């Protein structure tokens, strides 16, 4: 017995916090955490709609997203560690070789 928009707004809050984190954090691990927040916001939406529309698909996709998020964190952290090993720093704004 929940009103749908309330859940959606919670999800919006998580997503916006994630956006801020991605834009403002220098530390690559923190950026990854912020991305996790955004993915969670999406999951909350999927589950909320699944519950309100009485459809299973939303939950199944939430599960898939969790699996994909796990893969993403694994690869992301591997890249971060590689970065740290070669540059002694994982600050995103110092990795700016790809420019003119």
């Amino acid at each position, binding site marked *: 017995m929940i009103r749908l928009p309330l859940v959606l707004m919670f999800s919006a809050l998580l997503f916006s916090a994630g956006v801020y984190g991605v834009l*403002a954090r220098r530390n690559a691990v923190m950026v990854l955490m912020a991305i996790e927040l955004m993915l969670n916001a999406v999951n909350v939406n999927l589950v909320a709609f699944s519950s309100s529309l009485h459809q299973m698909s939303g939950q199944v996709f939430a599960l898939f997203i969790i699996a994909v998020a796990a893969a993403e964190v694994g690869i992301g952290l591997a890249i971060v560690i590689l970065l740290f090993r070669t540059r002694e720093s994982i600050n995103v*704004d110092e*990795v700016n070789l790809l420019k003119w």
Partner: protein
Amino acid sequence: MVNALASEGEVVYEATTNGVWFVEHAWVVVVLPLISSALILAFGKRTPGKGAVYGIAAVGAAFLFSVGLLWHFVEGGGPFEASIDWFTIGPLHLELGILVDGLTGIMLVVVTAVSLCVHVYSLGYMHGDERFTWFYVVLSLFTAAMLTVVVSNNLIQLLVGWEVMGVCSYLLIGHWWEVKENSDAAIKAFITTRIGDVPFMFGIFLLIAVSGFTTTNITEIAHEIGLGGVSPLYISMAAILLFGGTVGKSAQFPLHVWLPDAMAGPTPVSALIHAATMVAAGVYLIGRLFEIFLLADHWVLTTVSIVAAITALGAALLAIVQNDIKRVLAYSTLSQLAYMVAGLSLGEVGLTAGFFHLFTHAFFKALLFLGAGSVIHAVHSNNMSDMGGLRKSMPITFWTMMIGSLALAGIFPLAGFWSKDELLVVAEEEHVLWLFGVFLLTAVITAFYTMRMVLLTFFGEYKGHAQPHESPRTMTAPLVALAAATIGVGLLGAPQLNAVFGQWVFFEAVHEAVFVPWIALLSTAGALLGLFAGYTLYKERKAQDPLQAPMGPMWNVLQQRYYIDAFYMRAIVVPVRDTWSGAVNWFNQTVIDGAVNGAALAARAMGQVVAWFDRTVIDGIVNGAGDTADRAGNVLKYLQTGNVQWYAVGLFVGVIALSVIFIRFV
């Protein structure tokens, strides 16, 4: 052909036959070589024999399957159509499906049989080749693409197979791309067929538009058009555009120039693609969409006849003067394809005759090409001036080639005799006497150049340097198999034996094949005349071709292929490549060379004007464009900081802006 309108999955054959199961699972034939192509690509290099075994096994299985499928039609079964939804764009349903009728059955057998022979033959011919595995990958993929075209029940699927074939042809012609000539030939073939594909695509779009953008299904579109209500001009436009595809793929005048050059590819490829299957796709296309051609205005089929007649006669004449054995066969292919197209242009009765010729031609032309390959393999040269006297050192190749040549010349009772005869009968029946004349004349010339080829290659004294030897068994076995087929398949269309072929492949109603004795006699006499003329002229080998002196300037015209290639090079390739200055330069030179002094002055003045225009206006625009881009780039580069988070800010600001626009203003 399209006997009844079949909706999805509906079975329209009348009685159950032994081949029904194969017909209902016709998609397997397409999938088999596709799988083998993937297998060879993935595991080929690690398999003993470098992966050829997958291809041979898959194509062999596909061949057996096709024979089973054809059996359905032998027993008098009807067409079958089934499809699944691929995807939907608005009202437009794209499907993935099969349409199997007698024509399809015949084509499946031809394609898989020839492909199987070529697969086996290549074991010997390509032995030790650097890219042996890759060769088999593309060969199998090509087979799958051709089969896709054959079984396709809708235009888009057909187009997909059509284009994949084009790519495979490109890859195979340029198989030995280290030599510039070969890669040039590949590019020429690709671009030339492309020119035909553009009208073809527009033709397809027109047909889809006829259905109100609801379906791409061939049967449904044909039904829609058959109901009337579509303007004939519209249908004629579609038909002539579709014919553009045939002109490109089946190498008809004026887009025939790529086929002789395509002989740069390995010989098995020439046999498979450039004689038996891919070039036949263009002919098949007309047969598949025959309803549209019949409903179009009369001038469409007349155009088709004229184009085919020009190609038949022109290419046959060119074959006379070639020195490269593969080029003789290439021009012969052009001319024979034109026979088929001309046959189709004669209407409903011509369909059976045209496809019968396609059927027989596929076997004996593949045989001739593979035999030529065997010869080339032995003497390490394509030129007939390096051959001669090979009948003793290569007996199997000689005898099989002999059978193929006589079939090509149209000698009783070999395959070519029956199908050519059938075409002549139809032309006479339909009272298209000028086409009858062209057929007959071409038949004489065909016999002539065939004789010339055989004499120069197998008789006289050996002129080459390499030690000629008989080819390995992997190469001779396909030759023998194809020779046997060449002797046998003609009888399928023999009127004395009921002409069973005509009961499998027909349009709307079976047309009784008739045997007209005087036509058969006439065509045999023509063939013998050609053979005899060839024998008298070439029985003794001379340093100079005996035709060169009497023909005079004609000889040069033929040597230069009517200057068509040169014309395309100058009129299209060079201007496009060298842009304006090249065109102006060419224009200047031709005019100056060709005209008197007064005209020359005018031309020079004009050239100067154009050059001035070129230098100031065009160069100005070009340089200006460059400079603008340069300056803009200098300013804009500062936006590219390399900092991903700065980019992300841009991304999200963009998202917000777009959502504001969509919510507020749209």
